[in-house]
């Protein structure tokens, strides 16, 4: 069925699907695909069209305070496909430790272990088009160049795989909106409505049931959707906004009786050029610096702490990338000459590179999005993001770098210089992953989480949340593969709910 334009829906209409999916990003589209050809009548409501539109995008504008972050209307995209319209395709599954409750990491732990979403990784991998599900197993096969010998220690060679949009001439990552639009149109039990902005989640009087959704268009149309069940899939920032702004019955907002919605926001911190690595034996294999193809996968090597090392030293996830070739100053050359000479290594062909990293942050209730008094074109309250990063998180990464430096020397592979020192220094090179995590965190206990292990909002039988906003602890891995897997799991749960 062709996509429906919400601007053509008469004012006052009431639509009654079985399931409303709010948001046509990777989570919403995955859910629609996964529930195709079931008896569940779905209505997917997407705020944007099939292409970028400035007026719709402007609905995302907001304020920020604290640590410098990306403007809220630049860190996400509001049209069909959502974040996959500008993602880099970086993919990697969460590690087992990411699901564990760790006494030394406040607010850590998922309500289930990794095994719970493992069965969904293969299908998620297929949907993001990242080739065979290999990741760290790539190390066991043939690679175009040698692995960096790291010897024994806390860090190991690990791998990203990359989404590659099938048939795309520019080899871009899979943009879900464009890639799956024809497939979505062919789903008989799906209506996909564009330019449809949900402006309110309206509760029934007993506050245990979501009664209906208010929908508005930028052209001024207003109508309601009264679904049996609803899945909120607007992304890690907007999910919280819609819950908080729906405050006509519960003043704190839907699902926010325990003041958790919008808190624990996280992204992956990406301090650029944070260290310099010298490889004594010559140029590092190209797949550390850029993507290459092997074993059917489009991949890039990274260096990361092992789970055992993270447990032992109480460290967070870190995925270190080799960035650019750099020159060494006189001190650097002297250090290389001295260290290599003392260890009896020929470093005459040594090459130096800058390092980047994607860092996991400690969950922090004060890193949060809140409503402001400002309103957007639809009358919705805008958001303010209060961004933080703990000194401990930077210190933990320094420990990872220390171990890498030790391993490089011990294995006579190379050496390392840490290039960032004070907090101001780290923040001056800080970039972010545009990965919006944690604002509707998952926990079995309603006092500690917005949704339960099935992604159902605590206390509301017919409202679910999909996407990385439910991640209670974040990992350093990029979220798309993982949120798609989690959404496939939610789809299975919903099939049971509707049975």
């Amino acid at each position, binding site marked *: 069925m062709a996509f429906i334009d919400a601007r053509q829906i008469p004012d006052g209409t009431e639509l009654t699907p079985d399931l409303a999916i709010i948001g046509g990003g990777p989570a919403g589209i995955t859910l629609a695909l996964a529930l195709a050809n079931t008896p569940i009548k779905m209505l997917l409501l997407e705020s944007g069209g099939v292409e970028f539109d400035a007026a719709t995008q402007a609905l995302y504008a907001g304020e920020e305070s604290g640590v410098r972050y990306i403007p809220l209307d630049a860190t996400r995209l509001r049209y069909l496909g959502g974040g996959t319209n500008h993602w880099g395709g970086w993919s990697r599954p969460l590690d087992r430790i990411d699901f564990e409750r760790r006494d030394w990491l406040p607010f850590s732990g998922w309500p289930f272990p990794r095994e719970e979403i493992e069965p969904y990784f293969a299908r998620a991998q297929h949907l993001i088009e990242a080739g065979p599900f290999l990741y760290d197993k790539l190390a066991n096969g043939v690679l175009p160049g040698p692995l960096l010998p790291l010897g024994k220690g806390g860090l190991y060679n690990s791998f990203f795989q990359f989404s590659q949009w099938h048939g795309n001439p520019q080899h871009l990552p899979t943009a879900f909106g464009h890639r799956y639009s024809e497939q979505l149109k062919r789903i008989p039990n799906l209506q996909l409505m564009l330019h449809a902005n949900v402006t309110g989640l309206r509760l029934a009087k007993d506050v245990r049931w979501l009664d209906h959704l208010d929908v508005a268009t930028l052209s001024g149309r207003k109508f309601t959707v009264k679904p049996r069940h609803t899945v909120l899939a607007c992304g890690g920032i907007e999910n919280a906004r819609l819950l908080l702004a729906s405050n006509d019955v519960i003043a704190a907002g839907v699902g926010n009786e325990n003041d958790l919605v919008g808190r624990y926001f996280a992204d992956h911190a990406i301090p650029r050029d944070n260290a310099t690595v010298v490889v004594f034996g010559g140029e590092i294999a190209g797949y550390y610096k850029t993507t290459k193809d092997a074993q059917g996968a489009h991949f890039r090597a990274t260096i990361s702490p092992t789970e055992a090392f993270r447990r032992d030293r109480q460290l967070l996830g870190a995925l270190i990338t080799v960035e650019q070739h750099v020159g060494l100053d*006189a*001190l*650097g*050359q*002297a*250090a290389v*000459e*001295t*260290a290599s*000479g*003392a*260890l*009896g290594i020929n470093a005459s062909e040594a090459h130096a590179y800058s390092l980047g990293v994607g860092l996991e942050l400690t969950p922090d209730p004060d890193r949060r999005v809140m409503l402001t008094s400002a309103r957007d074109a639809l009358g919705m309250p805008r958001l303010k993001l209060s961004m933080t990063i703990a000194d401990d998180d930077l210190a933990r990464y320094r420990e990872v*770098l*220390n*171990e890498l*430096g*030790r391993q490089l*020397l*011990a294995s006579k592979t190379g*050496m*390392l*210089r*840490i*290039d960032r*020192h004070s907090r101001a220094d780290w923040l001056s090179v800080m970039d972010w992953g545009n990965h919006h995590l944690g604002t509707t965190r998952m926990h079995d206990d309603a006092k500690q989480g917005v949704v339960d292990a099935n992604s159902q909002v605590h206390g509301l039988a017919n409202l679910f949340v999909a996407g990385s906003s439910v991640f209670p602890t974040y990992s350093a891995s990029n979220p798309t593969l993982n949120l798609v897997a989690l959404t496939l799991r939610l789809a299975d749960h919903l099939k049971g709910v509707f049975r």
Partner: protein
Amino acid sequence: MNRTRRNVIAGASIAVLAAAGLGYEGWRHLAKGYPPTPYDDLLSLLPDREPAKQVGRAFLTANSGFVPARAAGALRQRIAGRPLSTVLQDELAQGDIIEAGHWLLPQTLVGLCALAAKS
């Protein structure tokens, strides 16, 4: 030529080569202009004292409390006549690394570099 005479010639040749080698090392040492120091037994372990001095100076910038005599005592105890590379590998295995000019290096190597910078 009988076996004894051949042995004498071979021995003499080795002695001449060794003397020449020592002479070259002595000349190289003098040519770089290093005056004798109380730590020459330690400094001679460094592959090249000039770059080591640079590393040592970088370390001393952030570690003004470095006392050469005390450090030398600790280094001798730590090295205990073993080859430097063995000492360094042991330290790396134990995680005894420190920063010099933000480069991560084995502790003993940095100590030797700092001594070189102070000498």
